[in-house]
């Protein structure tokens, strides 16, 4: 283990922590490129496209999701992963890699060319070598091993934590709803997401049941009650949080009315598992099916699954988690391809997760926080295959930021997301991904979709 110098972290973090985020006054002032975003709103797009983000909360140990099966990597894997090594991955053709054995359905999708595996993706300010990281001579993202911070950075594409909008929100800002009656561009099916926070756009959030006010009996008293509530929302209390709270419910009521009128509840042409992710993706499928009624031509969805913070008992946890992920995504893919929805090439699903985990296990049958990891992109428009650079599986080696296999990403989050955004129709890439300018323009598009 190389000795760590104390000054590793004395380099300049553009950290605005504490109780204020000083540069996030919400105005264009600190946003650089972003200040010009409104001037570059996209022209009304043709056709329909949707991005579906599946965020794996906790830090997915993708070292066990995508497993090397041949060559030096395979033996390094089996040696170093020790008690946590996956013994029987599902081979992805002759690629030399395999998926976790509980991902049968995804392996099938891969074989049909609908899955792109992106190796070693993570937050980066600029490309970084181990030497630069260790010496502190390059910029690294802020608070690398903190859940909250990395989750934020993955959703805001702001490795120095200087943005409060999410990159999905910034994209949504560029593709506002077509009409006043159309639904919001960004929709979360699992609570508020940082991804979809926009400057001008407001994310909608739906949930399966109970989406609407109780007591709607059509009586005069209730109609008057609802009207009174609308009036209350219009009151200016002069209190910031009061106004903000009212805006959320008001938006909710509008969205509920839209969903109620537009979204069909007839069964979907696929059986979604009764798991959390299964139900969320079924919700997404329902909304996509009703995209015409919703007046949508561009949509970004946010779904998520927790439980990936496998400090202990990792093998068991991953069995269940990957089964759930694989089955849900597969059902979704089936639904999209069905003729009744016919959106297979219009919808691209991708994973995010705040970090990978230490290649070296801990003493508890689990792993700890690390950095670059492997991610899946699934859809009919995807150019299936392997993308990016697999890390060298040597502890403390050139791929390792630290000593336990914290892989320094070789694909930046910005590149990964910018590829998706371009497919979606975004032209003003630097407006959405200001940090992208630190990378080579001929790598703005990784080509997997």
């Amino acid at each position, binding site marked *: 283990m190389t000795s760590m110098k104390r000054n590793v972290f004395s380099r300049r973090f553009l950290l605005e*922590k504490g109780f204020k985020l000083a540069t996030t006054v919400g105005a264009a002032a600190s946003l650089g490129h972003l200040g010009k975003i409104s001037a570059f709103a996209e022209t009304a797009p043709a056709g329909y496209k949707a991005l579906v983000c599946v965020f794996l909360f906790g830090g997915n140990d993708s070292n066990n999701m995508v497993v090397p099966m041949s060559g030096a990597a395979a033996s390094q894997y089996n040696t170093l992963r020790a008690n946590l090594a996956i013994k029987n991955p599902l081979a992805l053709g002759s690629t030399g890699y395999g998926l976790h054995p509980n991902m049968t359905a995804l392996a099938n999708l891969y074989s049909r060319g609908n899955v792109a595996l992106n190796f070693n993706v993570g937050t980066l300010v600029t490309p970084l070598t181990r030497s630069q990281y260790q010496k502190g001579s390059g910029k690294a993202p802020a608070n690398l091993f*903190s859940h909250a911070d990395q989750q934020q950075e993955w959703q805001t594409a702001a490795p120095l934590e200087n943005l409060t909008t999410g990159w999905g929100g910034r994209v949504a800002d560029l593709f506002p709803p077509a009409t006043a009656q159309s639904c919001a561009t960004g929709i979360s099916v699992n609570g508020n997401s940082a991804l979809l*926070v926009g*400057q001008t756009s407001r994310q909608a*959030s739906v949930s399966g049941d109970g989406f609407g006010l109780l007591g709607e009996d059509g009586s005069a008293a209730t109609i008057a009650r609802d009207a*009174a509530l609308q*009036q209350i929302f219009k009151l200016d209390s002069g209190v910031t949080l009061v106004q903000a709270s009212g805006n959320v419910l008001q938006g909710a009521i509008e969205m509920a009315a839209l969903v109620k009128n537009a979204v069909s509840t007839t069964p979907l042409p696929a059986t979604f598992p009764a798991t959390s992710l299964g139900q969320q993706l079924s919700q997404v499928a329902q909304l996509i099916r009703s995209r015409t009624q919703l007046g949508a031509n561009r949509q970004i969805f946010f779904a998520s699954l*927790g439980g990936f913070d496998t400090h202990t008992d990792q093998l068991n946890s991953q069995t269940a988690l990957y089964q759930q992920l694989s089955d849900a995504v597969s059902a979704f893919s089936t639904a999209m391809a069905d003729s009744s929805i016919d959106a297979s090439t219009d919808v691209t699903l991708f994973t995010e997760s705040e970090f990978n985990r230490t290649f070296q296990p*801990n003493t508890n049958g689990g792993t700890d926080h690390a950095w670059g990891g492997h991610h899946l992109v699934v859809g009919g428009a995807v150019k299936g295959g392997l993308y990016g650079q697999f890390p060298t599986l040597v502890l403390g080696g050139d791929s390792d930021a*630290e000593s336990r296999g914290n892989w320094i990403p070789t694909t930046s989050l910005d590149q990964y997301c910018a590829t998706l955004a371009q497919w979606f129709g975004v032209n003003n890439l630097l407006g959405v991904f200001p940090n992208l300018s630190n990378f080579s323009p001929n790598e703005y598009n990784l080509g997997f979709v």
Partner: protein
Amino acid sequence: MSFASRFHPIPSALLLSMVALARLATAATVAPVSIKLDATAATLHTADKKTFHATVVNTTVTTVTWRVNKVVGGSALTGIIDQSGNYTAPTVVPSSNVVTVDAVSKADPTQIASATVTLLNPVPSISSFSVSEVNTATPFTLTVSGIGFTSSALLTFDDKTALTITSKSATQITVQGTSASAAGTQIHVTVTNPNPGATVSTAKTMAVTAPIAVVISPKTKTMRGLTTNKFTATVSNTNTKTVTWAVNGTLGGNATLGTIVSDGTYTAPAIIPATVTVTATSTADLSKSDTAQVTLQNPIPAIASATSPITAGANKSISITGTGFAQGAQILLGNSSLAVKWVSSSQLVATGTIQAPVGGVAALRVQNPNPGAAASNTMPVTIQNSGTVLSYAAAKRLLEHATWGPTPDSIAHLQSIGITAWLAEQFAEPESTYNLPIDTTSNLSTLQEQFFKNAVTGPDQLRQRVAFALSQITVVSGVKLPNYYQMMPYQQMLLNDAFGTYDSLLKDVTLSPAMGHYLDMVNNDIPTATQSPDENYARELMQLFTIGLVELNADGTPTTTPATPTYTENDVRAMARVLTGWTYSPCFAASKWTNAPCFQSPMIAVEAHHDNTAKLFLGATIQTGSAEGDLDLALRTIETSKGTQSALPNIAPFVALRLIQHLVTSNPTPAYISRVATVFAQSGGDLKQTVTAVLTDQAAGNDGSTLAANQGHLAEPVLFTVSLLRALNANTVYAPPLASYTTNIGQDLFVSPSVFNYYSPFYTLPGSSTVAPEFQILSQSTSFYRANYAYRAVQNQISSDIVIDLTNFAQLASDTNTATQSTSLTVMLNAVSQALLGEPMPPAMLSAIMPAMLATNDPNTRARNAVYLVAVSPQYQVQR
């Protein structure tokens, strides 16, 4: 002049012979005068007329002197005759009914012709009756009109009715009698004159009809005191339709019985008699009447005014004026039980213990007992708390910060003792306890229920709030501790440590088996060639529980720009090694490495598995020779670590900010943080003093000063759900099952999504720099769940175990008179606002809500919608 009157009478024979002789003497020369009447006898009725003619011969003087009974011209008694011979019989037959009418020749007064007139009583005739019919068996008075009635005339009914003559004249006879003939009989009535000339008049028929009948309508009537009812009396079989009215025999009634006037309108008195009988009596026949039975009910009481405002407390009196208060009337005033003194039907005095209701305005009603029990209108009575140390609004604010929400009782209590005394009470209050676990399989639901039961009803409110705040700093989660026996000791420990020092809390947290399991410190072992100690707890202990990521000034701002990190990955790894060698307490078997999971006692150290090499941690060398020694030193090092430019250890502003955010406001000013951090540091991390500083700082707004626009925080789901119940004084019998509600609203109790809690202390409103942690879990769907919880609350449908009673508000909303309802609804809305927002309803909100009130006449719907709208309003969702 008759010869006979001048001279004494000469016998007629002699006269005749004298006359004959005279004639003879003169015979040779003249014939004698002689007189002759054309009638020598007549029979006349009274007042009849007859003209006599007298023929006088043998003289040229043919005039005569007419006389009746030798009285020239007659007399009233015997009849008058004029000198033309017109005789008028007297109107009354004289006692001697034969009179002589004679004519005396004036030529020779000795020559007299006479006629005998026999006078007879007139022939009576009846022309009319004063009444056309008589009622059978009913005394009548009958005046018969006609002519020719003599003074002894008799009136006869052919049905033998005995008649008493009460007055008589020639043209009228008035009799009284009672005919026994049946109705429908025709009586022949005759007048009979006696002799002389007794005659019976022609009969005139008189009908006999049924007796006079009086029928009252209605025959029975139920009516209330102070109301009127018009009875009608139909009188039949007579033309006299009038009746007299009486109440219980008293003509016209009286004040006690109720009065009745001539048109039959009865007015029932305020104090109802036991029984009332209304009688209508025919004026034509006083024996004919009818009665109606009146069943009286107490009046509907009406309150005109009542003492208001009134101070809550024991032995308070309310004077109530109005009308219709029956004896035995009760007073209903919210939950207060009052003794009633009945003064009069227009005044009551109620005395007793008066409790302030939810919202401070009680619906006062008077309830009359049976018969006809009825309640009065509602009069709002403002009930003020007796305490004056603190205003209502200030007390409510402090209780929002320091408890699970104000209740009417807690506000009253705080108002009377003030904040300092209240805090002392709270610090002395014994802690709520959870039941001990009974097995290793029960899940968290009963733990959640106990939590909510304690929150809604437990007396140690401040301790619970602080413990909950601590649970969101030193987080463990049911995601990994899904069983009761795992989680319960940890939550009890937080309650226990809430008023201790932060240091002892950290020690307890670090060695708690729950935390050991959650963040993987338990069984953490000395590093090997291939494995390193688990870093999870080491990292989160610093990042999330104590010093955070960056060095801070006392006021919470970063010391430098860019900020300076507080620790490095080296420190994390070093701390991971400090935290080696701890395993579960040996609860079930002899102690070894490792022991089976046991959550009821702190973890124990097994030195052989503790890394006792020198560990360089935050600039200190940790190598005390024991696991616990190392731990204590490491904790001390964390607690004293501070940036070179900081005035205070980092832990002080770190903890200060979080306690302020959880209790008071999301966006404290740097000065506020600094003051609280200073207290924390100077008191050695004493939570009692620190919490006191948080709650009593001027920035908390207890002095009523105007708050900054960004002051306040969105009530997190657990706080919102419990607060609403407490504000509405909900009754909870067993344990309120609120967990499913708070989960939907974004907070699954004891099951934080991660060690980062449900929301981040740094979360800002989208597109803004305003810090609003609780908004991180406010999405469109959770906002619906908040509104729908409020809906269920007002419908009293949260759970069968929770009872929310909005009756008082409904009563205050019961006025549907379009002239007055807006005014009374304003009172109700102000009371709702007082309960939930701590002040009368802002005028703009009032205007927004009033139409919803007026859209229905149902008081329950009005009350529910009023409470719903305020509870759902962002003004209630955000506490300030």
